[in-house]
């Protein structure tokens, strides 16, 4: 067995002479020398986080960072939701005087920006940061300090735009900030600059996490977890990370060029000096369409995990499911121009993008059929997580249908910028992301906290959310077809949109109530939910092998994987690898496709430097809004903090 699980090729041309083969310090305790609670306690000390504020800011534990990511993303979800509710109240009746156009412009911009950049992208990565290392059976994420850095950068970026909003400098040019509206001529002041720099913050953090996930999945899988044994959730966020790596640079470039146009007088988007406004749209949507899938792909991972566990059988069509994820990832880059059908494109181009927009329905359809087949052939248990998945099927498929309609250029031209489009993308995004996400919270809450959420409140939550959602957004299809444009702060009674808008607002209140219930459920369950134990759902993937909540080291010994659902295959005892250090942070690095154990490598210790680096980065980005010299001043400061970050400290780190 060992030869299948171990890679024995020499690490370098000098073979055994390499220092990599130096025998480990014999006085260092290894995990075959201790056992039971003592092993657990000693590993927890080695992998633990220090106390106090410095300890909290120095932590590199993927679970602590992941938890912060999840909570922060949910706070932004609530803020985005509240801004939506304010807009719904304003639109409830014609010529409402609740707010003026300026505040309304800021609200729809903050709503879209928050939901897309501060919630939609980070929430998928947040759950990946927490769950991927557990699911692949390792002790920490790859590049844990980069992970900590990315969280602080994200937090500072989100805080920047919301604090600016509270100071009445909220962005007001829509979530995609088209030029020339967002350019120097039509948006004086700092509002658009703050939007553009917020993009830089969040994309930097998203890219960093994507790199960590890719490397964790490729190099840190437990021995025996070959490519065809990787959990579907991990596949989903792995493909997602690639989409992020190829898509996010486009929006960083677009927003950087925008801010340069505004601050140092470049002319990228200025047609008077050879620039072009459509260049912005191309760059933005080259990111913006994959963005939709960046939001959706992790959700397919939630769905796969939940469906398999509650159907009580392995996924039907594992291979087609994985191939569909990959196909969706590729195709997502061939669709961006369908956001620009009304900009006067050559007809051939429009036809191509119509075809590719319809094509992407195929892999998504395959996934849906595989999930339905899994449920059909299994013995489904209808607990709250599965209810949310069923809600997702209904809502997402409805959104997909209006999507097929919009892929056609003549229809798109007709309903462009109306509430029909608003209805479509809320069906796709809330159906495709928020419903699976809520299911995922019910599903993994016991793992995160050690306690179960209330099933009774959960069912209320689901039905309230499902009904509230449809009452809010279904009427928008009709108001859109009746000609109501998006982003108007009010309308006249004669237009005849009043009743539909009132219904939408009432639905919005129901949806709001469902989230209040959810929050109540979370808070109550945290305090007095039933104790969960390691595997309350009887699930099959490795995160359920760890304690709930997991110890800092995740696993006392690294599991050896023999099946796609290891906990279903090994019911009596778990095969494990032994021989890792108990006193130092050591983890197992494995080969890319076969996941053979390859090297024992050290994982970075906690450090304050990533936090300091994030502070300097934030100072540079925010300062650059006021003077381009901020970037120049920050250069040396950044060099210093990065050297502090990477310079080895102390004897233990040096020995490795």
């Amino acid at each position: 067995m060992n030869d299948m699980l171990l890679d024995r090729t020499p690490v370098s041309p000098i073979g055994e002479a390499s220092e990599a083969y130096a025998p480990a310090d014999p006085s260092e305790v290894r995990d075959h020398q201790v056992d039971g609670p003592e092993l657990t306690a000693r590993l927890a000390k080695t992998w633990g986080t220090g106390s106090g504020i410095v300890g909290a800011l120095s932590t590199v534990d993927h679970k602590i960072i992941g938890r912060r990511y999840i909570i922060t993303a949910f706070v932004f979800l609530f803020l985005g939701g509240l801004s939506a509710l304010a807009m719904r109240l304003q639109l409830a009746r014609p010529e409402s005087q609740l707010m003026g156009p300026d505040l309304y412009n800021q609200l729809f911009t903050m709503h879209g920006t928050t939901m897309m950049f501060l919630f939609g992208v980070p929430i998928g990565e947040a759950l990946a940061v927490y769950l991927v290392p557990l699911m692949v059976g390792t002790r920490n994420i790859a590049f844990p300090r980069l992970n900590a850095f990315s969280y602080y950068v994200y937090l500072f970026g989100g805080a920047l735009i919301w604090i600016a909003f509270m100071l009445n400098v909220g962005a007001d040019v829509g979530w995609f900030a088209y030029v020339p509206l967002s350019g120097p001529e039509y948006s004086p002041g700092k509002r658009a600059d703050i939007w553009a720099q917020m993009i830089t913050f969040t994309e930097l953090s998203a890219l960093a996490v994507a790199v960590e996930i890719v490397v964790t999945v490729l190099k840190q899988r437990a021995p025996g977890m070959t490519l065809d044994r990787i959990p579907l959730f991990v596949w989903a966020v792995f493909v997602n990370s690639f989409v992020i790596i190829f898509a996010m640079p486009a929006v960083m470039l677009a927003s950087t060029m925008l801010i340069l146009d505004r601050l140092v007088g470049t002319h990228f988007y200025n047609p008077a000096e050879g620039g072009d406004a459509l260049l912005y749209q191309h760059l933005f949507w080259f990111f913006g369409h994959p963005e939709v899938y960046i939001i959706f792909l992790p959700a397919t991972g939630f769905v796969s995990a939940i469906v398999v566990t509650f159907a009580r059988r392995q996924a039907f069509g594992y291979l087609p499911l994985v191939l569909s994820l990959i196909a969706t990832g590729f195709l997502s880059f061939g669709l961006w121009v369908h956001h620009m059908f009304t900009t006067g494109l050559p007809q051939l181009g429009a036809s191509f993008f119509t075809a590719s927009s319809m094509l992407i329905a195929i892999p998504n359809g395959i996934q849906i059929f595989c999930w339905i087949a899994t449920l059909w052939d299994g013995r489904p248990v209808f607990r709250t997580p599965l209810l949310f998945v069923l809600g997702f099927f209904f809502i997402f498929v409805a959104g997909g249908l209006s999507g097929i309609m919009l892929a056609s250029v003549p229809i798109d031209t007709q309903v462009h910028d109306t509430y029909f489009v608003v209805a479509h993308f809320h069906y796709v995004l809330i159906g495709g992301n928020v419903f699976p996400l809520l299911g995922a919270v019910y599903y993994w809450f016991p793992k995160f906290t050690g306690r179960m959420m209330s099933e009774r409140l959960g069912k209320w939550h689901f039905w309230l959310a499902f009904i509230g959602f449809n009452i809010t957004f279904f009427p928008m299809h009709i108001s859109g077809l009746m000609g109501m444009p998006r982003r108007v702060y009010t309308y006249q009674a004669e237009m005849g949109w009043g009743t539909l808008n009132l219904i939408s607002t009432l639905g919005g209140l129901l949806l709001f109530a469902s989230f209040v219930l959810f929050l109540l459920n979370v808070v109550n369950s945290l305090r007095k939910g039933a104790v969960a134990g390691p595997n309350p759902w009887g699930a099959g993937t490795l995160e359920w092998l760890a304690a709930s909540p997991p110890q800092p080291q995740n696993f006392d010994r690294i599991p050896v994987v023999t099946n796609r659902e290891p906990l279903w295959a090994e019911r009596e005892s778990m095969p494990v690898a032994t021989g890792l250090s108990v006193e130092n942070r050591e983890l197992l690095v494995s080969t890319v496709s076969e996941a053979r154990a390859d090297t024992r490598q050290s994982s970075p210790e906690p450090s304050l430097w990533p936090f300091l680096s994030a502070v300097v980065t934030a100072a540079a980005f925010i300062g650059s809004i006021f003077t381009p010299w901020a970037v120049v001043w920050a250069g040396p400061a950044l060099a210093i903090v990065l050297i502090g970050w990477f310079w080895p400290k102390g004897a233990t780190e040096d020995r490795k």
Partner: protein
Amino acid sequence: MRQRPVLDVSELPSYAFGARSPVWWGTLAFCTLEGTGFALAVGAYLYLTFINPQWPLSAPPPDLLWSSLHSIVLILSVWPNQLAKKNGEHENIQKVRRDLVIMSLVGVVLLGLRVLEFGTLHVRWDQNAYGSLVWTLLALHTAHLATDLVDTIVLAALMFTRHGHGKRFSDVADNSFYWNFVVLSWLPIYVLIYWAPRM
């Protein structure tokens, strides 16, 4: 759950080189995303080239002297860079120190040539969209050059301290790998900025 030991990993090496090292994959991922950024900036340049009737816009093409010298030194630097990688893999501390010092000096020379290069562009970033893009492309590449230079200098210093052994040799190899990206990403930009307008 009870545990059943089936595999002993205590004898495994404590680091490896190239694609067996997680840092190598991290470097590759960063090269990919930065490469995407370069490709998109090049795409933006070409996009504006095609929609404008005249290109470059009201400016002569930039001078060839410093940029070509820069390109030659950059290409030649691949040789000591590969040496650094090879000597890193052989864990030869004396030669690694020598190679890293050479690479640091080469980096400083390249940065100096780049400063001269900026002076012979014949266009400012705020003159027109062409100028904006030329400056962007050049600045993007300079940022990469400077980043790897700082990295190389820090690594060189590290190799002269007591930390200069073991896994650091793997870091030396990964640093060489990133330098190759800095070289390769420059070539299309050089052709685009300096030769395309002359064709």
